């Protein structure tokens, strides 16, 4: 299991936070077609959901590429470790990423 106690303190990420010279943001704020490296999952993401997201490959260091968002504020599609998967914006918001140039 993921050991919470050993992790350094988490930062709650939202679109306004400017970590690492403005390049860090949450996953849902990425522009379509851009790629990013995952920094961490927010501590707001807990329990089963956290475990599931990590099992799917949303672990620090993974590279994600943002694809389309579904209509009506629907889920956002990502390419991650060779798989396309969709997360709801509220979930993607819990993933802190560092945009790659």
């Amino acid at each position, binding site marked *: 299991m993921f050991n919470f106690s050993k992790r350094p303190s988490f930062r709650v990420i939202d679109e306004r936070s400017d970590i690492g010279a403005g390049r860090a943001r949450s996953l849902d704020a990425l522009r379509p077609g851009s790629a990013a490296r995952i920094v961490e999952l927010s501590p707001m993401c807990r329990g*089963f959901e956290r475990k*599931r997201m990590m099992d*799917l490959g949303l*672990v620090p260091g993974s590279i994600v590429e943002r694809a*389309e*968002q*579904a209509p*009506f*504020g629907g889920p956002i599609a990502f390419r991650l470790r*060779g798989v396309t998967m969709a997360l709801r914006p509220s979930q993607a918001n819990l993933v802190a990423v560092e945009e790659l140039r």
Partner: protein
Amino acid sequence: MSSHDPAACDNCSLGKALRQRMAANEGRCDYLVALMGNPNTGKSTVFNRLTGLRQHTGNWPGKTTERAEGFFDEGGKSFRIVDLPGTYSLEAADNDEQVSARFLRSANPDITIVVADATALERNLLLCLQVLSIRSNVIVALNLMDEARSRGILVDAKELEDELGVPVLPMAARRGQGVGELRRKALELAAKAPVQTQPADAALPGSEELYLRASRIVAKCVRGVPPRIGFDWRDVLDWLLTSRWTAFPVMAAIFALVIWITVQGANAPSAMLDSLLVGWAHPQLKGLADAAGLPWWLSGVLVDGMYLSGAWVVAVMLPPMAIFFPMFTLLEDLGYLPRVAFNMDGLFSRAGAHGKQALTMAMGYGCNAAGVVAARIIESPRERLVAILTNNFAICNGRWPTLILLGSLFVAPLVPDGYGSIAAMGAVLFIAVLGVVLSLVGSWILSRTLLKGEVCSFHLEIPPLRRPCLWQVLYTSLIDRTIFVLWRAVVFAFPAGAVIWLVANVNAGGEPLAFWMVEGLSPLGWVLGLNGVILLAYIIAIPANEIVVPTILMLTLTLSGAVAGNGAGMLFEPGEVGSVRAMLDAAGWTTLTALSMMLFCLCHNPCSTTIYTVYKETKSLRWAMWSAALPLGFGFVLCSAFALGWRLLV
């Protein structure tokens, strides 16, 4: 869809027989094999290839919702193989994943086959590495090698074998490649080494660490990147099917096309079957029965009751199903269904439901009982219940023919010649779309009343589009779905036919029973814009929606005296849909009756099989009752409002 889903078939004899045979074989096998893998890696295809079964496999994650078992022989030894539900990990709290993990630890299989998707090896390696850390005697079946190759991904199986330390077999199970090698390897491994297990409570390494290892392994074993030369048809199609502006128009167009082809194509064969089975064979059978000297009541029950309703079911249902199911399976094989869920989730999430509910609905368009079972793919219990209770708003294949028939009989004549089929299709499509709207409204209401709560975890894997295997599509949809569903309908039609004949011919107070029942139901029928015969038909036909129309026709006929009594002569002019219209007109049907019935067809209680399936899935009588009450409530409100408005305005 998947009406052959083993879980949906618990209450039918075919599934029971299969399970009994399996149970009988259980004691007589030499080795136990566990089949594992991520969802949608072709695990069920591997299972089918190994065991020779022809269970349908869909191109979307979570198709296998219950473990299936089969047998195969190799080198004189027999293997029992268990197809475990697809899992991403051995650890998470998901139901399916618990099943797999528990099985692995407690059943102690001799061989564990992990099916991995060569096109997404890195993600699949997580499960491989987890399994390797608690079991020996593991074989990695590297499936979908053909697809990986076509996308420019080259996986070095030998190198992977060295990295993992267990046999790795490249496969293309859809084409049957590598299956023989897998069997031989299983035998070799089972004969050679006894299994070594880690203690049951041994902790698994964390996913972060495993993914680190996975990416190192992938760096060594996977060569070549997906080429991005020119445009790939998949990318263009994918964009069309899911992009913000095109997704909904394309979705509507696809469904409209499917329904239009079904309506257009089903007419002629339906009429032919009708003239053959009803127009020609029925009088022949009647003649035979008379010649054999059967008493009038026996030939009435057998020929006018049971045979006629069975014949009607075949004539009404077979052609639309034989057209609809192949097209639907084609879309499923292509990988369109998860994309529908993707497109719809924005709406479903606002209604407090899960986007995968769109998938269970898609299932429901084939068979609601299968749709209810399919709701297992939704992990959280609240959203799962929402999906189960609203599944009836997906029009099952037993109701499509009813809608199509009513549309072409009553809506088509309302417009000028030549536009009839378009108007009929439009009406049917309107009801289908209304079903989606009602399912959203129903979910919204449920989320605020009976099933309060917020949506929790959501994720949706979108598999790559695949070129469908045409022959397989034809085989699955015709044999597995069409014939299977038709058989069920015919089986239910026989007793219902007998009941219909009896209520129409057993007299009480000088009139048949049906007369009194229709009389009693008429006031309610009038309020709903229907009539007593329709309501009685829905009550008698509760075993299967397929037989509602045949029941109505037979009740109408018997009550008007055409086959009553000694069952004299012909029913109506054979082979002409027009004659059905004439008969209904004579029975007092109006456009309002037909339109109200189309509404009621969408909103009424599900068939008894589905209600029973809800009971089994939720283990609660209360939810089973709600699953019937919810659509029925909607139906009463909608139909009476519609009828009132129609009578005031038209």
